[in-house]
């Protein structure tokens, strides 16, 4: 106690030593803020992930080589084995104490191919042309034909596009394309169209359509689930347009971000980009990328014009005439309207949304349309599965249209199974039977493919010049991928993983242990991972912030050690006389050492305590209501558009302890050197 008293008086008597305390206070305040922010990010990311698909735990087959993720990294979906007898497992896990919902899941990726605007237009004409003859079909065909003729007139007129299209062609190919365009410009061609629509469509599709540009693939990363259960289990889910698929029906919900970025009319999407960038302060005058985007609006004009039928075209021209103050043809009016600069953009953007957008087919896909999702099928290439789009959704508070989580698709489990080419037992048996019937059932051949002469088999004579072979079979369209499914088919087709949503307050670790016990008891190969593993890259950001905080803390500690150490060393040198006196009156060296160390401890702990208090006060003052997060791409890590820093009492104590320890460590050398003074030396020095 006497030592502490000595130390206390020593500190009070030397205000210069308070520098060390202030340094400790500053460090502690900064660490407090850092710890609170990292805590807030960790909690925000946790809530974001748990409430949007990972659940508190992910259940999977323990024999899998991979572990389940909900957010995929560049490596794609993990390799998971189906959970055996999932319906039974689901019932048992649901009965585990603390489990509120068991949501079957699958993650995967697919893509959608989109032709150019002429491909799309010709495709809709073809659909009508293939309908059985009727007055209604003839009337629609006449309308579509007139519209097509107008569009192709624009294509023929578009010299720039033509030059671009011919640039890479060989001479004969370019000539062939020119001739095709010239043919289309003739009235006789459209006479033929009215008489033989399918034949002329083949001509347009094969000879003309490719001249207006390539198609494109759109990647669709998806979560597959029970679409009735998913929105109930995950409170972030919000329906934006359309509806959920009815129970028992296959369907796709598009994330609003995916929809806006990839399915919106290109001109409209580009205007959105310009609007977003200008909201962040960019200007046409200073930002070249903005001017480039504006130029792309004009490049996409033919695409927009091609999507306008006669009625829409007239309405747009009329609206533009009013907006621009003079009448005209739709193409030059649109060109004028889309010639953008800093002075006119805001007004034009608003006019586009309010006046023009209602007349435009703003999205290429609408709820009710069918998309063909494609996925790799091993070495067999690609599987295409048609699925109806039912609507769009977003995860509330997790960023806007640029957020990754809002760029996902949500799919039913049966379609996901089709895409993954996981066959049913009946399908496996059918394959085996066919392979055996065809005599192709051979075992795996040895890998060293030895050379041997090829056999020559005499093929039977075809029997003259007649048409070769039997007539090819005809298939019924509905056989491919049934649109409806039974509840048994949904859960019986091999569920790969399931999100477990826990009761409020339930401890995820304890529930995981209960599931382990269940697995042992039933022999089912079940295992779990928590949200931080299932969150993949997104959850990894939490770890990164923690590492960054640790690195900063280490640097700060080094700084504190150096500055505090040198300050205390300087003070110790000034106290030679005092120490010598203390030693002369009988104080041992170790006691002197303890006093000096105790001074460091006092300075560190008091300073750190003060700093933590200061940090807490600052947090309350500045971030009491949370810190607004305007960058949408960050919102998923903050748990929404407000970051709430999190600081527990334990964290505060740890900060004090760590900073105190650092200052004590910095005091070791000064205390050792200061206590090494002999009384005689101190007296000599005083005499000098």
């Amino acid at each position, binding site marked *: 106690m006497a030592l502490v008293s000595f130390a206390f008086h020593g500190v009070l008597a030397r205000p210069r030593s308070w520098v060390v305390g202030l340094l400790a206070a500053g460090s502690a305040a900064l660490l407090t803020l850092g710890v609170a922010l990292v805590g807030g990010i960790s909690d925000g990311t946790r809530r974001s992930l748990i409430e949007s698909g990972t659940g508190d735990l992910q259940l999977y087959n323990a024999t899998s080589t991979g572990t389940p993720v909900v957010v995929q990294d560049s490596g794609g979906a993990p390799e998971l084995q189906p959970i055996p007898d999932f319906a039974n497992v689901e019932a048992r896990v649901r009965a585990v104490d603390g489990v509120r919902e068991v949501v079957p899941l699958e993650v995967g990726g697919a*893509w959608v191919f989109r*032709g150019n605007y002429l*491909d799309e237009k010709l*495709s809709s004409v*073809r*659909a009508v042309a293939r309908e059985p003859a009727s007055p209604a079909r003839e009337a629609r065909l006449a309308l579509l034909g007139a519209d097509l003729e107008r569009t192709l007139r624009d294509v023929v007129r578009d010299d720039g596009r033509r030059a671009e299209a011919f640039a890479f062609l060989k001479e004969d*190919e370019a000539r062939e394309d020119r001739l095709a365009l010239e043919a289309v410009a003739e009235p006789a061609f459209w006479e033929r169209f009215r008489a033989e629509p*399918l034949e002329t469509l*083949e001509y347009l599709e*094969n*000879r003309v*359509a490719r001249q207006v540009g*390539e*198609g494109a*693939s759109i990647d669709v990363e998806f979560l597959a689930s029970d679409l009735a259960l998913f929105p109930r289990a995950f409170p972030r889910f919000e329906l934006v347009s359309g509806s959920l698929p009815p129970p028992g029906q296959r369907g796709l919900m598009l994330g609003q971000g995916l929809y806006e970025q990839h399915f919106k009319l290109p001109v409209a999407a580009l205007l959105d980009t310009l609007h977003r960038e200008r909201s962040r302060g960019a200007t046409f005058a200073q930002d070249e990328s903005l001017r480039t985007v504006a130029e792309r609006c004009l490049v996409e004009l033919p695409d927009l014009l091609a999507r306008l039928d006669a009625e829409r075209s007239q309405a747009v021209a009329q609206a533009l005439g009013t907006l621009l103050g003079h009448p005209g043809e739709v193409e030059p009016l649109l060109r004028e309207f889309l010639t953008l600069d800093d002075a006119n953009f805001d007004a034009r953007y608003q006019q586009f949304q309010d006046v023009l957008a209602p007349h435009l087919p703003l999205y290429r896909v609408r709820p009710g349309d069918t998309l*063909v999702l*494609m996925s790799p099928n*091993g*070495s*067999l*290439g*690609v*599987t*295409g599965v*048609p699925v109806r789009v039912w609507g769009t959704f977003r995860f509330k508070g997790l960023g806007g249209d640029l957020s990754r989580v809002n760029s996902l698709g949500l799919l039913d489990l049966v379609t996901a199974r089709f895409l993954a080419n996981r066959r049913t037992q009946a*399908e*496996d048996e*059918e*394959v085996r039977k*066919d*392979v055996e019937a*065809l005599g*192709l*059932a*051979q075992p795996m*051949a040895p890998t060293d*493919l030895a*050379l*041997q*002469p*090829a*056999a*020559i*088999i*005499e*093929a039977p004579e*075809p029997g003259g*010049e007649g*048409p*070769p*072979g*039997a007539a*090819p079979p*005809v*298939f*019924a*369209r509905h*056989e*491919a*991928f049934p649109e409806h499914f039974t509840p048994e088919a949904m859960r019986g087709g091999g569920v790969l993983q399931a999100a477990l949503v826990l009761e409020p307050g339930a401890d995820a670790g304890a529930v995981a242990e209960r599931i382990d016990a269940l697995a042992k008891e039933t022999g089912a190969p079940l295992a779990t991972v928590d949200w931080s593993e299932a969150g993949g890259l997104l959850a990894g950001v939490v770890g990164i912030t923690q590492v960054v905080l640790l690195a900063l803390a280490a640097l700060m500690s080094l700084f504190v050690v150096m500055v505090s150490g040198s300050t205390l060393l300087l003070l110790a040198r000034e106290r030679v006389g005092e120490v010598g006196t203390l030693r002369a009156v009988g104080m041992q060296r170790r006691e002197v050492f303890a006093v000096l160390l105790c001074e460091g401890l006092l300075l560190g702990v008091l300073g750190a305590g003060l700093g933590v208090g200061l940090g807490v006060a600052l947090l309350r003052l500045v971030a009491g209501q949370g810190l607004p997060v305007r960058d949408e791409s960050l919102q998923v890590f903050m748990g929404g558009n407000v970051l709430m820093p999190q600081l527990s009492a334990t964290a505060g104590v740890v900060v004090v302890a760590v900073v105190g320890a650092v200052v004590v460590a910095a005091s070791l050398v000064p205390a050792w050197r200061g206590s090494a003074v002999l009384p005689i030396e101190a007296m000599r020095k005083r005499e000098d």
Partner: protein
Amino acid sequence: MSLLSSSLHGFAAAFSLLVSAPMVAAAAEKAPVPAAAPQPSPVEVLKQIDARMSFQSDYRGTVRLRELRKDGTEHLMELEVYRRDSSRDLLIYVTKPRHLAGGGYLRIGRNLWEYEASTGQWQRTTQRGNIVNTVSCEEDFDRSQLAENYDVKDEGVEVVNGTSFRKLHLTVKSGRLVSFEQLRLWVDPSFNIVKRIGYAPSGRVLRSDVIRSYQAIKDPLAAKVVYPYKEVLEVEESTGSQFTVRYDDVVLGALSPNMFTKTWLEGRVR
């Protein structure tokens, strides 16, 4: 659509061979070239192979492709293939598996089309790249163009069980688009390719094929016998999957003029 195109890769190679491979000289098979006879140059060998693989009549055949994966699972695909070399038209019609049946793939002029039977959707792609997201290239379905596409280097002769096999190393010519930048071929004295290894540009092996048998068929238009593949074993290195590709019911003869149209393929689905 996807089917066809899709299916194509694995088949791709097999196909390329298949579709194009005809005619390996049967006579030579029966009467091997004497060891002392002067050997044709490597380029001449390629030209011989290409020449034998060209027929003038239209082609129709059923391709059955069985894949055996390392985990023991089996897959089967069955395709009807129609081809007209005079106009470079190609139509592939999937008949198995059931969920892909009715779809197809149509090459006409400079267009590649894939047909999705269940929705009636067509997807247009181009000849300049790979078939959408597969490693299949259009050349996989074209006539054999080894001499046009590759530079060739002689790697000597391998004698196995008394038969001499000419070994050639092929490297793609600049500006040519092919599935394999390098190939190694083993050719028997009758100019049958009996083994083929495809390599990535890095030299990594991508696929190994053994051509187990050819079939001798009369080309009525050219009035000669040609030798398309009958059965090929294909081993994909990355996955270890083995494909047995069998070309059944091959007939050379005139096909309907309306065969290579979208309307024909659409007509296969009710």
